[in-house]
């Protein structure tokens, strides 16, 4: 997973930072037509944008958007197997024979996963902020490290923690890790297509988006729109922290009930 993440940093995030810097330093205008037929000058907009906020601000939003997508996919695929493997390989019988209670068993698994999610988010944060600093220094662009903390570190971390607990719960509930992955993909698909959740005037649907998509081209309008949506964004992140806790508790309750009912006594290895 770490190898895949590093590959993602190099191929995707690095390119994203550089393409944004190129838009600002480019001497030529880059004009494109959008789906509605309107002409957009990306380069001129980018130059206006860096007069309002530092270059790092826009890079952080874009990188945070992509990091959220990839980290949730990573952890969404990983976590269903963490519990199901114990059941498939018959380890659950061994665990049942010990004095370990369900709460500590579930919590220990989740803590390990949360720790990995934390480390991966932190490493990504370090990579993006360090590389942006390098590009900013090289091309003499404005930079503030604090711009990265919320969109690149906190937001993807909360999304990852939430999706970890969600897919783990689903895998236990439907007794299938592969089934949980399918549900994750459908869920992820609904979220990934919500490209304009952060809008002006604010849309209340934003509260329900488990994965914040900051996508927008470099434009001076971005800080204004984000400021308008600030309260909804905070509400959204709080909601997902609460949901994460609820899912962890539910997983523990479900596992306990199944253990008490003897569900895992005769473990059938086939899903």
């Amino acid at each position, binding site marked *: 997973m770490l190898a895949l993440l590093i590959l993602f940093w190099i191929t995707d995030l690095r390119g*994203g930072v550089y393409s944004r810097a190129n838009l600002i330093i480019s001497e030529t205008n880059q004009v494109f037509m959008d789906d509605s037929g309107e002409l957009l000058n990306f380069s001129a907009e980018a130059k206006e944008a860096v007069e309002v906020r530092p270059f790092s601000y826009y890079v952080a939003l874009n990188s945070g958007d992509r990091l959220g997508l990839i980290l949730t996919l990573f952890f969404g695929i990983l976590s269903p197997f963490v519990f199901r493997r114990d059941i498939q390989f018959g380890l659950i019988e061994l665990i049942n024979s010990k004095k370990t209670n369900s709460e500590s068993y579930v919590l220990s698994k989740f803590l390990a996963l949360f720790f990995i999610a934390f480390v991966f988010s932190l490493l990504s944060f370090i990579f993006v902020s360090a590389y942006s600093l390098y590009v900013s220094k090289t091309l003499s662009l404005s930079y503030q490290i604090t711009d990265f903390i919320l969109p690149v570190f906190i937001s993807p971390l909360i999304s990852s923690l939430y999706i970890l607990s969600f897919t783990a719960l689903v895998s236990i509930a439907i007794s299938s890790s592969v089934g949980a*992955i*399918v549900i994750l993909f459908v869920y992820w*698909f609904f979220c990934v297509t919500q490209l304009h959740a952060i809008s002006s005037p604010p849309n209340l649907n934003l509260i329900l988006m488990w994965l914040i998509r900051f*996508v927008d081209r470099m434009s001076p309008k971005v800080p204004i729109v984000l400021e308008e949506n600030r309260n909804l964004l905070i509400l959204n992140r709080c909601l997902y922290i609460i949901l994460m806790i609820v899912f962890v508790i539910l997983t523990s309750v479900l596992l306990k009930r199944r253990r008490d009912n003897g569900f895992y006594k005769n473990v059938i290895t086939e*899903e």
Partner: protein
Amino acid sequence: MGFIRMSSLKNNRALETVKTQLRLISGINWILVPALIFAIPFIIFFEQGDIAFKQSWAFKVIETFSPFVGILIGSNIFSREWELQTNEIWLSKANSRGCIYWSRLLLIYSYIFSLASLELLVICLFYVRMDYLEGLSVILPPAIFLSNLGFISGLVSKNTVVAYLVPSLYWFMEISTKGKYTGIFYLFPRGSLACADACSVISTSNNWKESKLAVLFIGVCLMLIGWIILEKYEFIKKR
């Protein structure tokens, strides 16, 4: 008469093998994947416009997200043998593994084909009329390629997590780098949904058919590589 009986016996045995393999590889994911197939028309339904816009939008979304079906169905077909600890049984058999390999591939491709057809049918009925053959040529090559990439990753790593992660990450890379590293082997040449920084930078390319053929070619190559890996598995394992 004897010849007819022999060929009938062979047909029965082939049918039995296919049935057994179907039982082995089909799981809850096969039942849940149609949810994704119905989610795609549901999402595109909210974008209204003239027929040209609707067709372009429908092609964009189905091309980008339908290959997920390949990942979800095909990725774990071999790695699950290690999950279920049944690998030793079929790897230790003296007879060729070709029967297992090709019947499993035949099954997953048939299912992907059926789901793609169903998806196009739903879009045609409820959203906009689309060229069926064009739709299939847009969906199938990346779906086949990603499913092959998934099962090879699973076969080599013997791990289902890796089997799902590798094609998913490849899909994501293609979306975000817009074919910068893959060139003609770009999975989504007919239009990209990756609007992260510049949606319109990628215009619909005219040579998308060549690109799809190239992807299909790589998919077939992966299929053959998978076959070689499986055939030589015992040898690789000993080494």
